[in-house]
């Protein structure tokens, strides 16, 4: 029998692993638009009008006034306003940043957003799901630790680090969805709470396999892709 050596992109493979992890908890998979309005990408997420992330050097603005989403969080309010609690969704997708590229920076990258909103969703549950999630990717002896941080769309906001091969790596941010964001979904923030997180996909892959250049993911180089 002749063997067909087709391969799936490493990013596809990691997203599948993540989606499979969230399935038993009832998370839906939603794919929001990559071209979106300033409302869903910034305003609805409580990002102040003069916040640096809206600057032209960070965001791709279209000539028609829309933008390329800078984060999968654009889907939080999009999904939230069309679903009733409990709201549980993961949103894998491409995000964009208007910057010069090098081994560590890319204009085009993939994130996966996680969103859970219901009565009595707690920070302690967010810590648990992140811990379980990274144990699922890196193995059960993985250590995760949390630091307070600041994002406009979450309160409290946290950042998390992972210990891999004896070193700590910063992996991403998360937090309890800001009451203004919950309100923008059409829900009462005094009744509902929730968490959200949005880690990048390329970085965990780079850490796991020792990939030294983020641009390889979109290089189309089969010598790279066929190793996965």
């Amino acid at each position: 029998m002749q063997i067909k050596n087709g391969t799936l992109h490493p990013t596809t493979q990691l997203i599948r692993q993540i989606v499979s992890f969230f399935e038993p908890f009832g998370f839906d998979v939603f794919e929001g638009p990559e071209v979106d309005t300033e409302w869903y990408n910034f305003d609805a997420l409580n990002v102040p009008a003069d916040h640096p992330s809206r600057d032209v050097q960070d965001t791709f603005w279209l000539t028609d006034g829309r933008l390329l989403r800078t984060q999968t969080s654009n889907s939080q309010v999009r999904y939230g306003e069309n679903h009733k609690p409990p709201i549980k969704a993961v949103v894998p997708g491409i995000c964009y940043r208007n910057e010069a590229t090098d081994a560590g920076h890319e204009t085009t990258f993939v994130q996966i957003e996680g969103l859970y909103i219901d009565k009595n969703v707690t920070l302690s549950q967010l810590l648990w799901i992140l811990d379980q999630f990274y144990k699922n990717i890196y193995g059960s002896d993985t250590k995760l630790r949390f630091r307070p941080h600041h994002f406009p769309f979450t309160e409290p906001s946290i950042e998390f680090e992972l210990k891999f091969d004896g070193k700590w790596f910063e992996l991403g941010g998360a937090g309890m969805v800001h009451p203004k964001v919950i309100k923008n979904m059409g829900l009462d923030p005094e009744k509902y709470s929730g968490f959200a997180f949005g880690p990048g996909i390329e970085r965990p892959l780079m850490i796991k396999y020792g990939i030294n250049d983020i641009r390889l993911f979109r290089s189309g180089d089969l010598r790279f892709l066929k190793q996965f």
Partner: protein
Amino acid sequence: MKVLKSWLKEYVDFNWSDQELSDKLSYSGTLVEEYYPDNKSDTIFDLEITPNRGDCVSHIGIAREVAALQNKSLKKEPLELKMSSQNASSAISVKVNDSNACPRYLARVINNVKVSESPDWLKHKLTKCGLKPINNIVDVTNYIMLDLGQPMHAFDLLKISSASIIVRKAKNGEEIKTLDGEQHKLKSDDLVIADEDTPIAVAGIIGGFNSQISNQTIDIVLEAAEFERRMIRASSKRIGIATDASYRFERGIDSSCVEYAINKAAKMMQELAGGTILSGIVKFESDKEVNFVTFDEKKINNLLGTNLSKDEIDSILRNLGFKVTGASCQIPSWRHDISIWQDLAEEVSRILGLNNIKMMPIPKSTPTKKSDYYYKEYLKDILASMGYSEVYTYSLLSDKDLAEAQLSAKDLLEIKNPMQPENKYLRSSIIPGLLKAVAKNPTFDPVLVFEIANIFNKKNEEPKLAVVASGKSAKESIETLKNNLGEIISGLKIEINEIGREELSRFKIRKPYTYVFEFSLKDISKKMKLSNKDLKLKINKDSIVYRPISKYPSLTRDLAFVIDRKKNSKEVRHTIYQVSESINRVELFDEFASDKLGKNKKNLAYHIYFQLPDRTMDDKEADGVVKKIILAVENNHSAKLRK
């Protein structure tokens, strides 16, 4: 921002080691990026302060955190000034025209100072915190900024015409030469400190050149003020100057500390530069804002998933300077980031320590209906099983890409502000990206690739599947694929296109036969009949060894083994990988069982690719590795090389 351990200790006692202090701060919200010894008894901590924490860009601010973490209070010395009987208001006048932009402006006058170099201890402290010593007057203003977070400025009194300070909006087009020697044109949104004639400083951002302190300065005016945060940020951005002062004003200063700061500065200046402090502060002051938040400890516990008593919560908040009375909580003047009870919950969680919160599982529940995502993944598996490799290409195109693909810009969505020329348009088809990928892989024949991604045109965004087959047996392969997809997607019409010679040369593809197709996956779940079992995501459980690609050419060898039928080809593959770092890729290309090979035996054949990171590998070296591979596979899997 850099802080010195010895300086923190002026405000709070602690016995932590440097590592402990670093951890305590990092895990309560002020991240220590690094710390290093200054001399035997001191350590410098370099902190990353998030933009909401304007209160932490000073030594007193960090000391306040250290105190709160230890359930202690700050040591803050009361100040006593020796002043002359002459009143400052006889020497300078202050008028504020815009109390929104400048809610507070305080000025003190010191006569007969001797401007000179600062003493070593002061120069040392400034240098260690990253500032350049200038003279004893300017250095004190900088010291106070690092100490208390209050930016200050000193003017040469004799350079201020009519001895009057006016805080006003700039006139459109008004110019000022700033301390750095640059000339700036201002706009009517910018706030200036002016005398009777001209601006003498851009408020909160940078001082003017002409009124700066020089060695000839005798009398000085000391300024401590508060400026509106958004105005400073907008102004600093527009003028293109960001300073240590604007950095702090943008984040918000402590309006209750302005007077203390100007007094401490005056006292220090007198100690270092002599002179007479005139009595009184010439000031303009609006009422200080006092803000309250109402909170319910049950809600805080519900949000955090904790079980803290009201006393425990109150105690954390009080240590941070909040005044708690029942359900009401007065926000300290230095905290501009607190306005809702969820903000208080964050305070509680960070002082408690996130890593001390007990993790709680979330409930399991039945999975929802499978969305289109699952159908796309199902298609990816079909494509991979037919030998196609998934690639991710860019959504953004350049003018050059448009020329290569002969696309017209008028049909495409366009980026208004690309930093790089590559990122000017959004793709309306995946095919050009895939053809570029084919060109990038000259050593592969055939090249079989696909991508599922969104494409964009003026009206909408939709997911598509695109396929390219190029080279050996490309036509046969893509036709089989087309037929297979046609069987599982209802109503699907696929048109295979052959890429012409001219287009191939535009894309620099040197393979003669290249075929493509692309179709929409919009509402794909409605066009395929698949069970939940079909849609279950396939997870690759193989152990993957990744080896960086060398820029030097690779060598290929084919090896076939006769092996027991029960053996797994992936385990053999893994054994091969382990033999040498020079093995970049191992691909099974043939597997068949036959009794001609022996009872219960099968044949496994692999392409093996070799490369070296620093030079071209020669045949002899490759043959050496091949020998080791044969040995390893034969010994570990009771196999025999097939000759």
